[in-house]
């Protein structure tokens, strides 16, 4: 594999808006609620790289995090962050502009893989989730056009740690969440 064309590490800076407090917003679950599917320790989704991929990824990430009893405020932010990473892969990895793909583009589209896992974080059973979003399309730096930087800005604000590794062979984004309390 070639050396990375672009690779940087971004640690969270203080966001302009304080992160939502999780402690007041836990949903109440009835005792003995066994209906929800058993929490899977790992998420693994492979999607065709077209615009609907972000929507499918959001549904899967939301479902997985709910199964892990993730705090709702953080859950929304992680869904947003993963959606941005998937959208970036579709747009920049495969050169697809917004909107429905032309038939030719659909045939040439590659795949976007979303993986998720939990990671212990500090004491008291706190945990983080780590998402990895990767594609096999070429990465090019978003052009310095008006509004182009929003996706990265949004991702950075929603997570504790963001790593973007762009190579000619494809891009991998790793997002690590803020710590969350243990599941009840």
């Amino acid at each position, binding site marked *: 594999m070639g050396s990375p064309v672009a690779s940087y590490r971004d640690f969270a800076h203080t966001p302009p808006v304080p992160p939502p407090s999780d402690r007041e917003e836990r949903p109440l679950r009835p005792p003995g609620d066994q209906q929800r599917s058993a929490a899977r320790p*790992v*998420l693994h989704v492979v*999607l*065709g790289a077209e615009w609907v991929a972000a929507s499918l990824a959001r549904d899967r990430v939301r479902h997985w995090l709910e199964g892990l009893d993730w705090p709702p405020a953080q859950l929304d932010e992680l869904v947003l962050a993963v959606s941005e990473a998937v959208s970036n892969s579709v747009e920049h990895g495969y050169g697809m502009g*917004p909107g429905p793909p032309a038939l030719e583009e659909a045939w040439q589209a590659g795949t976007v893989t979303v993986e998720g896992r939990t990671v212990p974080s500090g004491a008291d059973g706190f945990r983080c989730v780590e998402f990895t979003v990767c594609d096999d399309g070429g990465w090019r730096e978003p052009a310095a056009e008006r509004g182009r930087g929003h996706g990265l800005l*949004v991702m950075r604000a929603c997570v504790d740690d963001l790593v973007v590794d762009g190579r000619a062979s494809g891009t991998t984004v790793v997002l690590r969440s803020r710590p969350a309390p243990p599941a009840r």
Partner: protein
Amino acid sequence: MKPAGDERTPDGGEHAVERPAREQLLTVRRDEYPGALVLTVSGEVDGLTVTRLRHTVAEAFADLDGRVLVLDLVKVAFLGSPGLRMLFDSAAEAVHHRGLESLRVVVDNSRPVIRPIQIVGLDSVLALYEDVAAALAV
């Protein structure tokens, strides 16, 4: 190669996620008032759906005829960066090309909408209101 868009799930055991029809992901309702035109947006605004929303907003600008334009995003469940770009562009259109003071947007502090707006600083570009009545009362 399988057609793009099919979901393959090696983790197995889960029911297949139905691919949502594009039309179901976003709906826009247009309501005409003597002094205003209100677009009520429901659903998800991302790269897939934003093009249709841009067209609807462009049509609304063309039909404004001196009235105020209000975007009601209260029923939006997801607002991604393509939607944020659209809002920046629409605000610029309103102010620089249509002679409006600002683009009026209704958000009821719903977190999925407010949070991305605040992250990118759109809250100082848009005129934000908590409900349509407030947006029309000005």
